[in-house]
């Protein structure tokens, strides 16, 4: 382990959270031994009480922007960080809270959950990149630890990482899994979901439910058609496809009459 003097010269990192489930914080905490020799953790309020708020080389931010407080905090983080990395589906897409916001209005949700007289200020859940420049986005729910460490390693070598957004099917084929969509008629979202998990669900015989968020150029209309052919109703198909934050714009061609936010 490095001594305190050596620590002073190490790159500083911060781990911050907005509105989410703390999953990414746990993944980072679980990989602390790998990180500690190479970085100085100047801020990680979930796990330590001495936190500095000065300039930082890399800040990892988890969680979506879901309240005015989150926006202020995010802007402050951006101005202090050389690199701001969005980690986890919440920060990259908005996760389940964004998925729901595209189906109903946040005011209605507020009313339904907290009643009439709630003083709570809520915003429709949005990803970080809607508010600030984000240098790299690493999705996952939770993020994959190996992917996180390789992203960090490349940032520490001073270059931005390459993060794949190919579909889960690709990893699934590489693992030579039988296809649960074709063979078991399960509603597998692998064709439109970003890879990174190693096709975890299909490898266990279950359908991918899309927790990594959309892959690059997802063919939502084709996916919906296949699922309808398998006997799933269109409304169910749409709600499944949007669960983990896929934005409305990806469905523009499918729902020409629907309002697009």
């Amino acid at each position, binding site marked *: 382990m490095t001594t305190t003097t050596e620590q002073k010269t190490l790159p500083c990192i911060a781990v911050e959270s907005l509105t989410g489930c703390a999953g990414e914080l746990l993944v980072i905490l679980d990989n602390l031994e790998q990180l500690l020799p190479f970085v100085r953790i100047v801020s990680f309020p979930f796990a330590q009480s001495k936190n500095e708020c000065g300039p930082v080389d890399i800040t990892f931010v988890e969680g979506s922007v879901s309240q005015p407080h989150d926006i202020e905090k995010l802007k402050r983080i951006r101005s202090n960080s050389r690199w701001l990395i969005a980690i986890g589906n919440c920060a990259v897409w908005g996760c389940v*809270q964004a998925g729901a916001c595209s189906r109903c209005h946040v005011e209605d949700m507020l009313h339904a959950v907290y009643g009439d007289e709630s003083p709570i200020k809520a915003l429709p859940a949005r990803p970080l990149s809607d508010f600030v420049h984000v240098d790299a986005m690493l999705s996952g729910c939770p993020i994959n630890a190996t992917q996180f460490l390789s992203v960090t390693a490349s940032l520490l070598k001073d270059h931005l990482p390459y993060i794949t957004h190919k579909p889960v099917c690709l990893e699934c084929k590489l693992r030579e899994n039988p296809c649960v969509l074709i063979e078991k008629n399960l509603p597998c979202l692998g064709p439109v979901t970003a890879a990174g998990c190693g096709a975890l669900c299909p490898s266990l015989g279950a359908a991918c439910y899309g927790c990594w968020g959309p892959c690059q150029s997802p063919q939502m209309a084709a996916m919906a058609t296949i699922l309808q052919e398998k006997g799933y109703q269109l409304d169910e198909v749409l709600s499944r496809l949007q669960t983990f934050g896929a934005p409305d714009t990806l469905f523009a061609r499918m729902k020409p009459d629907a309002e697009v936010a």
Partner: protein
Amino acid sequence: MSGIERRTIEIPEICRVEGHSAVTVDISDGRVANVQLEVFEGTRFFERIVLGHQYEEMPHITSRVCAICSTGHVLAAVRAIENIFEFKPSVHTNLCRQLMHLGMIIESHATHICALALPDFLKTPDLLDFATKHQKEFEVWTKLRNLGASIQTIIGGRPFHPVNLHVGGLSRYPLEQDLMPLLRILDESRTYALHLCDLLSGLTLPIERTAEACFLAVVPDGPGYGYFGEVVRASDGWEAPVANYKEYLNERVVAYSHAKISTHLGGKPFMVGAMARLFFFADRLGKTARSVFDKSPLASGKACSLWNNLAQAIEILEAIEQSIVFVEQLAAGGFESEGATHLDGLVKAGRGVGAVECPRGTLYHYYELDEKGKIVAADMITPSAQNTAQIELDICTVVEQQMALDPALLQSSLETLVRAYDPCNTCATHMVQIRSVKAK
């Protein structure tokens, strides 16, 4: 006299708890006039998020409420929905679920005790200090956390947000070769759990006494120490089926917090979690955990909520012993082959409640389905919401005892107190701030 002294103690954001929360205490004329535990974590409206989705999606969506107890949410959802379908899972499925749950108990308790609670006693300001100056404790945390994560990965597919647990059963059942390596690790882990128990039993607490608590916990199915059941018991002698939770938990919205607050019959605050479970069911513990409990301050029955940390350590020890039994049973096999989970003929409209004892206390999920299995109403009550009123009561008791102390000491006592409950919100920065105001 020149006037009444009024003081406000503010802890604007508490670090080392899961989620964003703050404490405000108003003191007037030497008495605590008001206490507020504010949770300002952004709201995510889970009760609304799930509407219109299919019942099969519930475990996946609701696990996102909280990573560290995601397994608990998955199992509460699964139990609620299986209750609606009047479906009884197989022995094999039940064993896997129980083992999975113990994995969560071990991982969550170890992280809470070591990373969140202990730094107050070890006086470590940051993670590096912890890792370098307290190598033994750091090792204990790493080993126990990895153990909990391995169990959950083998059964659930990953350390949290499991993908393998579904309404009806598992999509793939673990094989003997997946499970056997756990036995050696479990065996070695006993010493780590015992180390934590020793360490925590020997601590000098900064707080002597907290408010007398009314405990609530689910009565475990079967004869052993456990986390699943259909009846809840209170230390004032009352019992009720968990299905009636709406009658006995009065949830209300308060102006200062994003978390709803629950009270028990007649507005009484209560405590859920490891301490409550041990209060009722210590006699069900296995030999090793029982002997630790008997020698511990918990057995004396003196009220101090800070012992919840120790109660969690005892539960880790018990979970290790129980896991060994479950792994052996699972590895021995001989279960009827399960195949996929076939619920098609069972789907029907109805309402159901599932309650599970999570690391922090009882978690309730409620769903109402239409005849196609679509969610038309949902409700979730987390243990942290249930503990809030009791934490406020404890804060009041502690401030009244320690009012004369140096403000910095008092604040640190309060933070240690809040952390002992392991409240689950998700955390932030800032320092503690005390303000003294002289009012007219």
